[in-house]
């Protein structure tokens, strides 16, 4: 395909994003709902319990769900206003076909015709160029049932190796490091273990804005006497009242962790019994950190030596502790190394696997945990099995009733899929729950690759920014229009309940995938009558794997308010805390609590390397990116919800007054940020809550307001996560307002 069918402005005029505000029954007082549906928020990885008020097949509001244990009625503003995504003027009610003659660049077509066209193009491309010429991009906001189905669709129906998902942009560095250290990738604890701990260490996690309800756990712990250490280039709201704030230079986290371990060893703040009996590899790590003196650590991290000493003492001498981190240390070309460094502090302290001692990455997406377990990753099969492992392949081939030799070998990560479009290996693409044009780095390249495809189809409920490049758009379902499970940040499997029916010709995503399979004449294995049937197969497929769901049922989830995996049998209650002494797992088989044959955790040497693109005379500042509280991911949903846009309308460039003074920039001025990939002009927000050598821009916006047009596509060699959190940038005061300022509404 070539370019967009119409100009961006013309497409926005028809398909939005437009804003929805409460009106009609949603605004009237005293409207009695037909029913309250207990379910969960559609946004972040915490998956707060919420009750949706349903009237006339529309969600008209919410009522807190006080009894759900994780959030006890609490919600962030996204959860409060999430109901406005339904019955939205931008909602896709039919399939669409690219048509430059139509005003928005698309014309409606019948659902069946659209499915036939998609199947026809898949068939044509695969017949002409081979099975691997068609790729799939999937997402971690889908239910686990859908993610399972997407993996199966790629391997069994399309027989393509090329499927990956947007969790690649999320926590894969943590996942890879967890597997290297513990042999399993899941938060080691429920958050309850934070409440009575001595020290909570938060590295690179804007808890208050990205995992807001976790704030209540941190504050409750503080009230019980916990010391809070926050490591971040910005004084985020959680950092404002912490006990120790370490303003780290972006991309230097491993240096800090090495420096802390150095001091723990120097002062013998170590649990020798735990290190000797339950770990391997400590000596090599100890030798490696010998050079990381406080002086050197301070020079590299940009943190005052006093702060490093204080953090080491509090962490080193604590009796209990909880280490937590998020994308701030994971979005790096050495993201895996950063996480390994954090884990070394946990293992050296011996504080894991018992009450009030914990470790976790804070997963970002709705199903960030479940979405990375059951086979939509490029190298993975259900139950966290390995696509390259012959035994694992055979197990799943048996479940799926397919010849194992027909199952493709591992493919490539999500970004590499675009590089394969460039080289011509991939000619066709289907995407679901992924908006790569906004969420991938160096995104002008991503747009160009979407245009290079012979055929692109996107399944979504709104015309997202990437779908504007599609040939066929299939109208998918909102979270409240389907049921299924997700696994939230703590590892708790919970149940999403259907509140309303899909409107118009929109269909539940799993139906659309099965309809394509049927139209291809390859319906074997794709005749499920609903999510429950998919979940039953998933249970069998995961049995005996590391992520064992075989003992989880919809009924058990409801009865227990969630079930923590692993849950290997019907009478098993689930596992809120991993690595307890004498616990059994299918890898160690009783040899020890960790998921290796000897049951021991692994220390890993984590050498420091600077970011892929360090500052220089030409680009003297660091650019870092992240979220704001009222928006989510690429903004496809939240940029359509009026009150959330009112709360934070457009991206701004955060910079320190020292830098602003040097560049003659005042609060509210238009400023241009430039990197080697591109430039962006936004208004300045001058605040003393950020390092003077760093600027911050949130990433939820598209087009001329998209900061990912500037970020670097450099990736971690192990996890393949992109380095969103640091690249070199320069800043200049803009001579005039950008053209978009008078053409676009804030959310567009």
């Amino acid at each position: 395909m070539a370019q967009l069918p119409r100009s961006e402005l013309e497409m926005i005029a028809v398909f939005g994003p437009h804003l929805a505000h409460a009106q009609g029954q949603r605004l009237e007082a005293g409207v009695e709902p037909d029913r309250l549906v207990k379910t969960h928020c559609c946004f972040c990885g915490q998956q707060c319990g919420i009750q949706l008020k349903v009237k006339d097949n529309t969600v008209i509001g919410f009522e807190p769900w006080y009894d759900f244990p994780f959030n006890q009625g609490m919600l962030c503003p996204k959860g409060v206003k999430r109901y406005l995504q339904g019955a939205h003027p931008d909602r896709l009610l039919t399939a669409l076909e690219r048509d430059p003659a139509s005003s928005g660049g698309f014309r409606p077509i019948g659902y069946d015709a659209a499915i036939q066209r998609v199947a026809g193009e898949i068939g044509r491309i695969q017949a002409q160029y081979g099975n691997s010429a068609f790729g799939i991009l999937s997402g971690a906001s889908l239910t686990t049932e859908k993610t399972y189905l997407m993996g199966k669709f790629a391997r069994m129906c399309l027989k393509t190796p090329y499927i990956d998902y947007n969790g690649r942009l999320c926590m894969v560095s943590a996942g890879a490091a967890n597997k290297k250290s513990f042999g399993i990738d899941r938060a080691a604890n429920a958050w309850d273990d934070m409440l009575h701990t001595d020290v909570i260490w938060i590295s690179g996690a804007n808890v208050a804005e990205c995992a807001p309800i976790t704030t209540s756990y941190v504050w409750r712990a503080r009230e019980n006497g916990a010391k809070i250490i926050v490591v971040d280039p910005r004084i985020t709201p959680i950092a404002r009242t912490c006990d120790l704030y370490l303003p780290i230079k972006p991309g230097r986290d491993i240096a800090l962790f090495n420096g802390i371990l150095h001091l723990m060893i120097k002062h013998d703040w170590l649990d020798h019994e735990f290190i000797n009996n339950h770990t391997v590899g400590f000596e090599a790590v100890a030798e490696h950190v010998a050079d990381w003196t406080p002086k050197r650590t301070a020079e590299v991290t940009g943190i005052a030596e006093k702060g490093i000493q204080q953090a080491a003492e509090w962490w080193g001498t604590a009796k209990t502790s909880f280490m937590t981190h998020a994308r701030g240390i994971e979005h790096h070309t050495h993201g895996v190394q950063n996480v390994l460094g954090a884990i070394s502090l946990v293992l050296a302290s011996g504080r894991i696997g018992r009450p009030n001692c914990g470790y976790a990455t804070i997963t970002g997406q709705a199903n960030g945990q479940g979405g990375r377990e059951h086979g939509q990753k490029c190298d993975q099969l259900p139950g966290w099995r390995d696509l390259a492992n012959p035994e694992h392949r055979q197990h799943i081939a048996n479940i799926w009733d397919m010849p194992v030799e027909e199952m493709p070998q591992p493919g490539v990560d999500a970004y590499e899929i675009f590089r394969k479009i460039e080289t011509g290996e991939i000619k066709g693409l289907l995407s679901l729950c992924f908006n790569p044009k906004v969420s991938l780095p160096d995104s002008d390249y991503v747009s160009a690759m979407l245009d290079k495809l012979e055929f692109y189809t996107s399944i979504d409920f709104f015309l997202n920014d990437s779908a504007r490049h599609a040939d066929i758009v299939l109208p998918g379902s909102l979270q409240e229009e389907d049921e299924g499970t997700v696994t939230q940040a703590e590892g708790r499997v919970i149940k999403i309940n259907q509140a309303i029916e899909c409107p118009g010709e929109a269909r539940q995503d799993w139906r659309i995938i099965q309809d394509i399979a049927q139209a291809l004449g390859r319906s074997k294995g794709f005749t499920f009558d609903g999510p429950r049937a998919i979940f039953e197969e998933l249970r069998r497929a995961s049995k005996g794997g590391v992520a064992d769901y075989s003992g989880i049922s919809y009924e058990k989830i409801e009865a227990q308010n969630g079930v923590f995996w692993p849950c290997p049998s019907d009478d098993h209650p689930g596992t809120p805390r991993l690595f307890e002494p004498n616990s059994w797992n299918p890898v160690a088989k009783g040899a020890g609590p960790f998921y290796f044959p000897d049951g021991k955790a692994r220390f890993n040497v984590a050498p420091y390397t600077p970011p892929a693109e360090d500052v220089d005379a030409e680009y003297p500042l660091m650019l870092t990116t992240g979220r704001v509280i009222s928006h989510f991911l690429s903004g496809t949903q939240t940029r359509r919800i009026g009150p959330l846009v009112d709360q934070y309308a457009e991206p701004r460039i955060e910079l320190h007054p020292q830098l602003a003074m040097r560049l003659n920039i005042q609060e509210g001025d238009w400023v241009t940020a430039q990197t080697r990939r591109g430039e962006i002009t936004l208004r300045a927000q001058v605040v003393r809550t950020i390092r003077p050598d760093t600027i911050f821009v949130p990433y939820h916006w598209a087009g001329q307001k998209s900061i990912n047009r500037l970020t670097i596509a450099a990736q971690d060699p192990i996890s393949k996560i992109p380095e969103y959190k640091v690249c070199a940038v320069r800043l200049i005061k803009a001579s005039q307002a950008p053209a978009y300022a008078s053409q676009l509404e804030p959310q567009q």
Partner: protein
Amino acid sequence: MPEAQYEFFIDPSRCIGCQSCVQACSECDTHKGQAMIHLEFVNRHYSTQTAPVVCMHCDSPTCAEVCPADAIKKTPDGVVQTARKPRCIACNNCVLACPFGVPKMNSGAELMMKCDMCYDRTSIGKAPMCASVCPSGALYYGTREQIEAQRPRSMPINQFQFGQQTISTKVHMMVPRTAQPEHIDVLSAMHDHTSGHDIFLMMHDE
């Protein structure tokens, strides 16, 4: 449990500025679509500190005392309500007089509106919307025993001094247990050559 045992507590030190309270306030049935709660950055240039303000529900509400139309009423259980529509003359006296800056003038409706502690909810035993959703516990609705057990480092106060006026409120503010409520007098903060007494008020230096 009798609803009188439930009380409202504000702890600004916990506030993360997320605006959940603001968004949820506009879902309240008595003023749907409009938020009555105030959430302000103290000074975003310097800090991410924010402060949420709900109506403090004074024992002797200044807003009612200054109302020339006698439009502002208090329920028997101590909740100060939005002005009565037939009486309110939209004079703004209450907006100007409230020591906490709570009432808002709805110019379209020519009516003073304010937080009524989600009377539609609290009067039937449900928690107010803002305190239900608040992710940080900056707004809390519960019993005295609960707050004391959960927050050993702080204590609730409900007496405030504004010039010569002492105000007691139904809503409590959480303050550090170690701090005593102090009323600052300009004289005590002035430099005095004879005593060598020199006190600086904590002010931002830029």
